[in-house]
């Protein structure tokens, strides 16, 4: 059976999902963008992975438009005037979102919604504003049907922020993903606690280390897709990843890996990125004619390439001959120390590479701890995470994370699953978040055991939607199928639960 026939006969695909699958197939019919033989060889071994970005890129992977500019100047191409009230503002955004491309063809960044909408919201009656925002969220969930669609709020408290939290809790939707930019100076405990409560009930928002991101990107940064730090009015060209476990298979020792195998694979991934970035900028039409570029909603100089890694835990365990994961990376100081050595080596080599374009970052790519994909199975844990099923206590897990998160300006994060009693004690979670962010954690996600909306590796799915797919029915959300794969292959929903501890008295 041809691949095209398989796609159009698949009962679990919606019409739009078929269309996107066929577009990917069409893209693969051209092979004018070529890489070295060594690259293809490494890719065949599974040591390099292009995340199925497609062989002929016709847009950057992630695009973070400047929505403030849209509200200030309107958009000529879409014939949109600057909005004058809340209804117009929401309408302008809904239209604009449909024209923001990405690797998934859905907008991965919806804007800092509270900051954008607050001037309009405060002029309206609260109940009316809530009604409008509720319809806005419904539109996003049903039209932008992909869990990598992401909106940001904070760091300051706002009426809009509160309304979005209330609605998120009431509506229990997987889309959009949501992040609170948390800054201990700017985010009140009261607002942060409201976010914790919402997170327990809906698996969002996550907490981003605002100070850390501002230091790396300036004030105008976005959290997009899963947890990706990028520049507003910019984005990410491409995101391939080193599968570190597979990279380590030919290494005879940790030293051999650090001296030979690791640099070799880093260089091959850089080759892929350079060629791809040049192709997107020079060959495809996006940066020449797309209205986002010509009207200044994004600027070429604000884009960078995202250098991804996965499977650091398994890589370290293999290099040290550790077979029992329970005694490996995360629980074992030697393995963690080797992990840091490997990350230092990657950091230094990538920073030494002169990348094409990426002007705003001194022509440099930035590191990304990729969250894994549904087909990774148990060989490569997401980014630098401790493997699921062997997580130590939450304290130890945080301590390990804090060492690794600073390496990844374009994103990393970890997820903590809480048991039911935490619903009554959200104030017991906030100090954990505050402490870990102050100690170097970049991004904290949590959810409650037994919720329908759950965080898989970085994105959200509904468990009830996964069940639909299992029953060979269609799921509106493109990402549900990844959630099913990650659950089956990577046991992604079986992570350790933070239990309340029975007192002994």
């Amino acid at each position, binding site marked *: 059976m041809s691949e095209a026939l398989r796609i159009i006969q698949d009962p679990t695909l919606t019409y739009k999902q078929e269309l996107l699958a066929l577009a990917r197939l069409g893209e693969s019919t051209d092979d004018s963008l070529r890489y070295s033989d060594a690259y293809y060889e490494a890719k065949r071994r599974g040591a390099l992975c292009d995340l199925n970005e497609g062989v002929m890129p016709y847009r950057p992977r992630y695009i973070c438009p400047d929505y403030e500019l849209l509200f200030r100047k309107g958009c000529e191409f879409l014939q949109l005037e600057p909005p004058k009230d809340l209804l117009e503002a929401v309408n302008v955004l809904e239209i604009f979102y449909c024209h923001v491309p990405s690797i998934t063809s859905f907008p991965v960044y919806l804007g800092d919604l509270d900051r954008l909408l607050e001037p309009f919201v405060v002029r309206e009656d609260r109940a009316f504003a809530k009604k409008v925002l509720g319809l806005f969220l419904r539109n996003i969930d049903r039209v932008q049907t992909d869990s990598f669609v992401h909106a940001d709020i904070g760091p300051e408290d706002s009426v809009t922020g509160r309304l979005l939290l209330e609605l998120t809790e009431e509506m229990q939707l997987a889309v959009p993903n949501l992040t609170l930019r948390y800054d201990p100076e700017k985010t009140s405990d009261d607002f942060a606690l409201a976010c914790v409560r919402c997170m327990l009930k809906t698996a969002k928002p996550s907490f981003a280390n605002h100070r850390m991101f501002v230091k790396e990107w300036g004030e105008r940064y976005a959290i997009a897709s899963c947890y990706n730090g990028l520049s507003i009015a910019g984005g990410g060209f491409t995101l391939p990843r080193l599968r570190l476990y597979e990279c380590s298979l030919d290494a005879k020792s940790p030293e051999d890996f650090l001296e030979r195998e690791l640099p070799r694979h880093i260089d091959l991934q850089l080759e892929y990125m350079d060629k791809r970035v040049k192709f997107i900028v020079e060959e495809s039409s996006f940066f020449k004619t797309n209205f986002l570029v010509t009207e200044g909603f994004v600027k070429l100089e604000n884009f960078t390439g995202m250098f991804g890694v996965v499977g650091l835990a398994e890589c370290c365990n293999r290099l040290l001959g550790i077979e029992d994961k329970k005694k490996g990376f995360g629980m074992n100081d030697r393995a963690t120390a080797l992990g840091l050595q490997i990350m230092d080596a990657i950091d230094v080599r990538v920073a030494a590479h002169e990348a094409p374009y990426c002007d705003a970052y001194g022509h440099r790519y930035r590191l990304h701890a990729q969250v894994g994909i549904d087909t990774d199975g148990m060989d490569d844990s997401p980014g630098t995470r401790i493997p699921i099923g062997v997580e130590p206590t939450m304290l130890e897990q945080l301590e390990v994370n804090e060492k690794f998160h600073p390496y990844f300006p374009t994103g990393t994060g970890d997820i903590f699953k809480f048991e039911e009693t935490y619903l009554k*004690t959200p104030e017991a979670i906030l100090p*954990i978040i505050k402490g870990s962010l102050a100690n170097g954690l970049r991004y904290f996600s949590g959810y409650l055991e037994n919720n329908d909306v759950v965080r898989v590796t970085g994105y959200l799915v509904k468990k009830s939607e996964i069940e639909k797919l299992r029953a060979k029915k269609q799921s509106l959300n493109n990402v549900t199928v990844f959630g099913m794969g990650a659950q089956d292959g990577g046991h992604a929903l079986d992570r350790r639960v933070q239990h309340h501890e029975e007192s002994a008295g």
Partner: protein
Amino acid sequence: MPSTGGFSIMKRAPVNRIIPFSNVDGPGNRTSVFFQGCPFNCLFCHNPETIHLCRDCGICVSQCPAGALSLDNEGHVAWDRTRCVGCDSCIRSCPHDASPKVRWMTVEEVMREIRRSAPYIDGVTTSGGECTLQNEFLIDLFTEVRKLGKTCLIDSNGSFDFAADPRVLEVSEGVMLDVKAVEREWSDCLVSFPNAIVLKNLEYLLSVGKLHEVRTVIFPGRDRENEATVRYVAQQIGGACLYKIIRYRPYGVRERYQKLLGEYETEADYAERWAELARSLGAAQAFVV
């Protein structure tokens, strides 16, 4: 009941375990330090292995499937943490309501663990067993914890005479007090300890503003006993502090006592009835947990 006073002077205390993050031992996120040894013998105790100190009888050694227990040269039961798989076979086989998994720790050793969790917590709660058996140790421990800017709470059964020696209160935020039984006979039966001191503490802690919360366990079908306790506590504390009404649960309770107290947990509705009574008597912060 083995004496622990001598060890307190040496500033070592028997620690059953330290939980870095707990959301049920006082407000916010807290590190909980559980000490071994308790002067009460509550029929409904969920952790009877914390009541007594190990007598080195060695019965548990042969029960350990991981080889984590041994008798050392001096005849003491030794526990190897690194080998322990946490199956609790030792605890089940112990005829003395004790545990071989107790560490005699110095204040500095306990502080080392607390410092590690300090960035993520609001404070420290000491519990047990009965932590006030380690009064001198607690005073030193809390003095150190406060240097980190963290709060200190004492989880106590009320057997320690705080009025006679209030020093530990001066270095802590207060006490979370169990008032398990008010009727004299019921108390003698339920906890095997005279309750006059508990009631005296209730009054005293309230008068000096160091009563953080009171807890009472509600037993199924024990209308008279439950009412006497709830009524007394509610009238004493009024709205001054939290009053947690806890449902009796048979999990972990020694089998012979389950038969006496009930093999089923207290119904939520039944517990709620007593919380309502407490509130109607002025204990505005009474609720079922």
